[in-house]
C-alpha cells in the first residue's frame, strides 16, 4: 500500500499494547537505609544470631589489625583492610549455607575467613605467595578477585549452572562502590535478571575507590537504584549494622533460592583504614570524616545493643575477645614462617599437561637452579 492509498479511509491502529515487563515499584529501594540495631526491629532479631555476629565481628576486627601489622613486619606484601566494614564481610559469610558460593573481591579475605577459609590460606595471595591459597571447592569460595567486578559474571554463571543442574545453590558476590562503574557489573546484573539466576550482589559502598569519592563515581540517587534498570529488587542497608545486613542478605538468599531471582544490595559503610597499607589516605580525605564513622562502628553498635538488652555479659565479651586473640596469635605465628615455593610450579598448572614449549622452559629453569645450587655449594 502506498502512502497515497493509505490516506482517507485508512486509520492507523494503536500501538501494540505496552506495559512494563515488571512492576517497577517493588524494585526500588526504600528511602532510608534499612536498620535493625537501635530500632524496634532489633527486638525480633534472634539473640543467638546477634551473639554469633558479634563474635565474628570482634574476630574480624582483630584479624584486620593483625593482617595490617603483618604488612609492617614485612610478612604480608600488601593488605587491603576491611576495618570498619566487618559487618558486611561477616554477614555475607553468615547469610550463606554450606552449599552456597561466595565470590569475594580482593578486599574480602575476611568474608572468606568468616566462611571457614584458613586465614593463612586466605592471605596467601597478599603475602606474595601463590595466587590463591585455598581450594575454591573446599569452602565454596571463589578465588579472591582483583580485576574489579569481573567476579560478578562468574557468580551469575555458577548460580545459573547450579540451577540448570537442579542444585539448590545460591551465589553471593561482593563488589565495591567503584566496581559498580565497570561494564562487567552491568553485564552480570543483566544476565542474572534475564536468567533469573539465584545470585545476590552485595555492593559494599565504603565511600571510596582508592582516592575517588562516591560523588565522582556516580550521580545515582543510590547504587541500589541501579537494580530497577535490570528488573531486580534493589535494597539499601546500613552496612555497619550487622543485624540489618544479615537480615537483608539472608532475605535475598532465601528469595534467590526460592526461584525469585537476583537481588542487588547496597550496604552503606566506610573504609576506616587507608585503601591498603601502601596508601596514604590523608592525601584525599579529612580525619574528621573518619572520626564520624568511627562513632558508628559496627562492633560498638552491636555490642551496645547486646549489652543494653542484657544479651551478653562480661564473660561473653571476653570469650569473643579471646577467640579473636587466638586467631591473631595463630596467624602471627604461622605467617612468621616463610612459605616454601617450588619454582617448578610455575609450569605445572598453566595447562592440564604442560605444552612441549613449557617443558623445555621448565627444563631450562631446572638446569639453571641446579647450576646455581652447585655454585653455592
Amino acid at each position, binding site marked *: 500500500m502506498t502512502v497515497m492509498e493509505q490516506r482517507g479511509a485508512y486509520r492507523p491502529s494503536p500501538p501494540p499494547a505496552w506495559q512494563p515487563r515488571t512492576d517497577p515499584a517493588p524494585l526500588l529501594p526504600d528511602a532510608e537505609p534499612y536498620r535493625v540495631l537501635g530500632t524496634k526491629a532489633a527486638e525480633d532479631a534472634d539473640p543467638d544470631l546477634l551473639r554469633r555476629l558479634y563474635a565474628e565481628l570482634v574476630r574480624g576486627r582483630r584479624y584486620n589489625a593483625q593482617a595490617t601489622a603483618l604488612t609492617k613486619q614485612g610478612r604480608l606484601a600488601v593488605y587491603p583492610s576491611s576495618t570498619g566494614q566487618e559487618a558486611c564481610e561477616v554477614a555475607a559469610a553468615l547469610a550463606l549455607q554450606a552449599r552456597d558460593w561466595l565470590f569475594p573481591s580482593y578486599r574480602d579475605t575476611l568474608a572468606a575467613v568468616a566462611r571457614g577459609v584458613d586465614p593463612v590460606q586466605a592471605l596467601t595471595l597478599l603475602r606474595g605467595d*601463590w*595466587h*590463591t591459597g585455598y*581450594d*575454591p*571447592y573446599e569452602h565454596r569460595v*571463589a*578465588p579472591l578477585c582483583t*580485576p574489579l567486578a*569481573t567476579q*560478578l*559474571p*562468574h*557468580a*551469575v*554463571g*555458577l*548460580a*545459573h*549452572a*547450579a540451577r*540448570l*543442574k537442579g542444585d539448590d545453590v545460591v*551465589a553471593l558476590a561482593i563488589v565495591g562502590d567503584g566496581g559498580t562503574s565497570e*561494564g*562487567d557489573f*552491568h*553485564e*552480570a546484573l*543483566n*544476565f542474572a535478571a*534475564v536468567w533469573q539466576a539465584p545470585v545476590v550482589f552485595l555492593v559494599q559502598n565504603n565511600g571510596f575507590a582508592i582516592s575517588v569519592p562516591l560523588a565522582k563515581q556516580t550521580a545515582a540517587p543510590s547504587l541500589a537504584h541501579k537494580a530497577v534498570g535490570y528488573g531486580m529488587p534493589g535494597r539499601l542497608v546500613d552496612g555497619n549494622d550487622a543485624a540489618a545486613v544479615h537480615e537483608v542478605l539472608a532475605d535475598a538468599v532465601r528469595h534467590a533460592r526460592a526461584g525469585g531471582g537476583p537481588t542487588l544490595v547496597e550496604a552503606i559503610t566506610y573504609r576506616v583504614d587507608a585503601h591498603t597499607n601502601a596508601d596514604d589516605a590523608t592525601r584525599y580525605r579529612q580525619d574528621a570524616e573518619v572520626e564520624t564513622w568511627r562513632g558508628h562502628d559496627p562492633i560498638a553498635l552491636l555490642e551496645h545493643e547486646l549489652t543494653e538488652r542484657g544479651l551478653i555479659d562480661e564473660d561473653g565479651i571476653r570469650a569473643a575477645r579471646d577467640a579473636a586473640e587466638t586467631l591473631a596469635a595463630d596467624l602471627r605465628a604461622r605467617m612468621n614462617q616463610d612459605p616454601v615455593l617450588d619454582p617448578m*610450579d610455575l609450569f*605445572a*598448572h*598453566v*595447562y*592440564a599437561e604442560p*605444552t*612441549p*614449549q613449557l617443558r623445555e622452559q621448565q627444563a631450562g629453569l631446572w638446569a639453571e637452579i641446579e647450576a646455581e645450587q652447585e655454585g653455592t655449594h
Partner: protein
Amino acid sequence: MTTVALKPATMAQALARAMRDAMAADPAVHVMGEDVGTLGGVFRVTDGLAKEFGEDRCTDTPLAEAGILGTAVGMAMYGLRPVVEMQFDAFAYPAFEQLISHVSRMRNRTRGAMPLPLTIRVPYGGGIGGVEHHCDSSEAYYMATPGLHVVTPATVADAYGLLRAAIASDDPVVFLEPKRLYWSKDAWNPEEPPAVEPIGRAVVRRSGRSATLITYGPSVPVCLEAAEAARDEGWDLEVVDLRSLVPFDDETVSASVRRTGRAVVVHESGGFGGPGGEIAARVTERCFHYLEAPVLRVAGFDIPYPPPMLERHHLPGVDRILDAVGRLQWEAES
C-alpha cells in the same frame, strides 16, 4: 567390507555436527552466544541445536561478550563445559579482560584446582566481502596469552575432529573458524564422522622437497594452490598445516624445514607482531644450519582490515606466495 556412503558436507555443517555429537555425548556441554539458539547463528553453525537440546543447552544470551564469557567461566567453575560463540572476530574484543585475566589463568591461579573446560569459537579472517570489524585475524592476541590453546581447522574433517577435541579438552581452547572456509565442502561419512584429533599436531598437507610453506586456517587452500602453481616454476613445495598454534608442533615443522632447507610462513593476519614472527623465529632457532635462506613471511599488511573492494590486495594470494618463494635465494643453490 561394507561400502561407505560418502556425502558432501560443508565446514559449517561439520562444526554443527561436532557440537551436536558433543552435546549428545556429554550433558555438561552447553552452547551459548548471540543468536545461537532460535536463529542457529548468523553462519548457521549452531543450527538445530536449540531444537534438539532445548534452550537451556543452546542459549541466546543478552548482547554482551564480556558477560557471555564471564558467565561461561562461572558455568565452567560449576562443572559445565560451555562452548561460547563470539559472533565475529572483532566482537570478541569486549571479552578480552575475561579472557586474559580469568579464562587463561584460573587453572594456574588455583594450582590446578579450578580448571576451565571452555571452548571459545571465533569466526575469523576475511575474504568474504565483510565490512569493517567482520574480517579481523586476531590470532596474535590469543597466541600471546599463556593458558589458552589456539586451534584452527582448514578442512572439513579437521573442523569436526578438532572441535570435538577442543570441547573435550580440560583447558580453555580458542577455536578459530576460518569464515571463508565455512562453505568449503568435502566428502564425508555422516554415519561415522572423522576421528577426534589430538590438539597440538601439525600435518603435512602436501609433501615437497624444494621449500616448506608453513600455514594454517584460511591460508591452507591458498598455499596448496600456490604449491600446484609452483610446479611450473620447477619448485616442489611442501605445505604444513599447523592446525594448532598453541601448543606449537615444533617437531613436524622443524622436520619439514630441515628436509627442504627453505621456508615461507603464510597467514592473513598482519605481519608485524603477527604469528609469522614467532614461527619464523622458532624455526630459525631450531633449523639455522639447515637454512639456505631466511624464513620469509607472506602476511596481511600492517593495516586495519581493508574494505571489501580492496581486500584482494591485502590477502596473501598465490602470486605473492610464489614471489616469496622466488626470493629464497635459489641462486645460492649449487
